[in-house]
């Protein structure tokens, strides 16, 4: 029996009668993480991993009917045993393990295999069937080491500071921004954040994640000399808006896995592209799939056909799952709205 099937509302568990990350409102929704394409409003009941509660409430509302479960703890629902396991994607992100009549399925949501210090690191979970994303499902995607990327960001910032220029780094407000903050060399200068980033920082700090001190852009007068030395974190949508004017002559950059390709970076029209993703790269996907020991793999959003074909050639029973995920950092800049 399939423990998860694709329905128009989202991925559905028939024996448990609940959905995982549904894209249409349903009664019971199990949420893997708080990104907008996975956690949507309008569901009757929400269940998520405990560290994700703060994020979910701040994004979907304080009054949602939310139940939480610590990583690794088990819950019975209609005969299905459910537990959450860290996915290493963003704060509170989880893989959902489902067990029913001796069959184990794991729905991974979005995941990254390299630990980053801002969320619990990915844990492989043995299962019969593994549901994997495929955002960066092409062998061209191999991430440089985080140390290399952060040294690149710090060097760029330092050089701009020395020229009296602000360094505006575009990144997604939830997850990526905090990861960058965590990895920056805060001694270089002041760090300024956009209004979209600030509330998420608060949630991370409340969860005990160490982030350097940040200034809220709205609190600084336009001619504040600190702006000329600052690293500024802003969501991509701020690019080209009047909000940017306060920085005068600045250098800009974009942090995303898509920046690995010269074409995508140039299309962004920024000075620099830093290759930093909260998704697994190609070796990471293959490693994670291998570690689960699963014989059957269901592939969702990204390079679905490529990964399915490749896994089948490796002797696995791989199939495609049609979903409506892929927004925020999942989609190549070419397709997203910003």
């Amino acid at each position, binding site marked *: 029996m399939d423990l998860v099937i694709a329905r128009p509302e989202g991925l559905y568990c028939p024996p448990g009668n609940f959905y995982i990350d549904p894209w249409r409102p349903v009664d019971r929704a199990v949420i893997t993480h708080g990104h907008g394409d996975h956690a949507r409003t309008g569901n009757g009941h929400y269940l998520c991993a405990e560290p994700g509660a703060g994020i979910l409430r701040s994004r979907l509302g304080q009054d949602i009917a939310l139940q939480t479960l610590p990583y690794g703890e088990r819950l019975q629902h209609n005969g299905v045993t459910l537990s959450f396991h860290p996915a290493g994607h963003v704060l509170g992100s989880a893989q959902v393990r489902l067990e029913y009549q001796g069959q184990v399925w794991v729905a991974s949501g979005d995941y990254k295999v390299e630990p980053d210090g801002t969320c619990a690191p990915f844990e492989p979970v043995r299962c019969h069937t593994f549901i994997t994303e495929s955002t960066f499902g*092409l*062998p*061209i*995607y*191999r991430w440089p080491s985080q140390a290399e990327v952060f040294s690149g960001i710090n060097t760029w910032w330092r050089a701009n500071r020395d020229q009296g220029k602000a360094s505006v780094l575009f990144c997604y407000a939830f997850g990526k921004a905090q990861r960058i903050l965590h990895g920056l060399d805060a001694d270089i200068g002041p760090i300024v954040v956009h209004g979209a980033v600030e509330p998420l920082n608060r949630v991370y700090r409340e969860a005990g994640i160490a982030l350097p001190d940040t200034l809220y852009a709205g609190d600084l007068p336009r001619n504040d000399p600190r702006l000329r030395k600052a690293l500024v974190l802003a969501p991509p949508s701020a690019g080209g808006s009047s909000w940017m004017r306060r920085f005068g002559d600045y250098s800009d950059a974009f942090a995303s896995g898509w920046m*690995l*390709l*010269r*074409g*995508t970076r*140039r*299309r962004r*029209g920024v*000075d*620099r592209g830093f290759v930093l993703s909260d998704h697994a790269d190609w070796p990471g996907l293959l490693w994670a799939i291998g570690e689960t020991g699963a014989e059957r793999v269901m592939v969702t959003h990204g*390079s679905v056909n*490529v990964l399915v*074909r*490749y896994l089948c*050639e490796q002797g696995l029973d791989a199939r495609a799952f049609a979903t409506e995920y892929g927004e925020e950092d999942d989609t*190549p800049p*070419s*397709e997203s709205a910003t």
Partner: protein
Amino acid sequence: MKAFAELYLRLDATTSSNAKLQALRDYFAKAPAADAAWAVYFLAGGRPRQLVPTRLLRELATQLADLPDWLFEESYQAVGDLAETISLLLPQHRHDTDEGLALWVEQHLLPLRGQPADEVRQRLPALWERLDRPSLMLCLKLITGSFRVGVSKLLVTRALAQLSGLDAKRVAQRLVGYTDLAHRPVAESYLKLIAPESADEHAQRGGQPYPFFLAHALQAPLEQFETLLGPVEDWQAEWKWDGIRAQVVKRDGQLWIWSRGEELVTERFPELHSLTETLPDGTVLDGEILVWKPGICDDTLAVQPFALLQQRLGRKTLGRKLLADAPVVLRAYDLLEWHGEDWRNRLQHERRRQLERVLVEHPLAPVRLSPLLQASNWAALAEQREQSRELGVEGLMLKKRDALYGVGRTKDLGLWWKWKVDPFSVDAVLIYAQRGHGRRASLYSDYTFAVWDAPPGAAQRNLVPFAKAYSGLSDEEMRKVDAIIRKTTVDTFGPVRSVTPTLVFELGFEGIALSKRHKSGIAVRFPRMLRWRLDKPVEEADDLATLQSLLGPV
């Protein structure tokens, strides 16, 4: 190699000309002359022919990366650049060579050309293992002949001028021919570029042409001409010929013909070889080479479509029949050197008067003067421009009467405007899409367009493809079209997707001709998207009859 790879990264990492100029200066200040010589060559657009066949490169890379062929192809489609794809797929290595660019090019890369496949299979992996990713990508770009970075020749010229304290025009002059296929850069050629000015520099230049002066596109509405350009009397107006821009150089009893790409094309045009006898030494003419068939009716109508010239350029050997079918002349419009003297700093109308005099004194069969158009006001000139299509020209050229002959697309010494006629246009339907390259990589941005084969109301009609285009959309529009293509895909053939026809675009093009090679029987020149017709349903797109009417009398 590493230093040049770092320069590439710096140039690629910024859109600011000043930052690029600084990066170039930093590089050239430190680079050994032999490396700098090759760097100038590549940056100024020089490209040796492909050193290793693409097929062999792909095969090697697929093997080394341990991937199935189809996965290499998928990767290439996502990246849109072969060199970059391979550099992303090969095993990564630490940089393990301090050999410079010149050594790499001369001793490792150039010798690969013409080697048997097995020899290349032996040599290349060992070379690749010594390079880190940025250097590897660069190395691959040099091998495939696809090295490009957002630097103009003008910028390289400025960097060298600033470094050497020379006038940029002098450096530009010395750079002429530098990227020619026949020229192989060595330390000495670089040192010559930046050497202090010598007294006999002018005498030493052999067959070198002058850097071409280029026109800017004029797009303002006619009402603004008076304000923008001043009175019509200040300008010299000519037809804008649709041929090959060329300089004819006659010095020391020898003739050289240079195309705008600074390629030596003397051998391509035997019709002009008689100028070796008739032109006095120390003469340089600037003009347009055109296919010309006199005797049909009046002079102007003798210009043949560019397509004919293009056919001729495509041939390796020029047979007698071809020469008879497509004879060329030079339409001369400027005089750059006379009696060995550089005339570029004289005013446009003085050069013109002298050119007329020269051509009267030396009536040269294959050279014809490009006539001046007379008009008492801008509106009258605009009226003459309307005849452009019938006359087989692209519109008008406006040259300021007091303009000096500048270098490249500059405005500081004088101004030339090209005032082209509006392109032909039809509303066409997008039926196939393919992912693009470079900036458009992984986006469905290269499209095939079709028109209907019968008028609206016909019992049955089909869409016939007639043109491919990829330019003209904003990034924003391109993203939207990409999303629609992904949603409306019906079928895929390799990298090509066929889509349900829903998108209509106004397609512009410069020329139209009958063609046996195209399904529609028609070929258009420089097709591009002028506008996304969101207001037009597919049924209202144009049909073949519209295209045929544009063909004009045949």
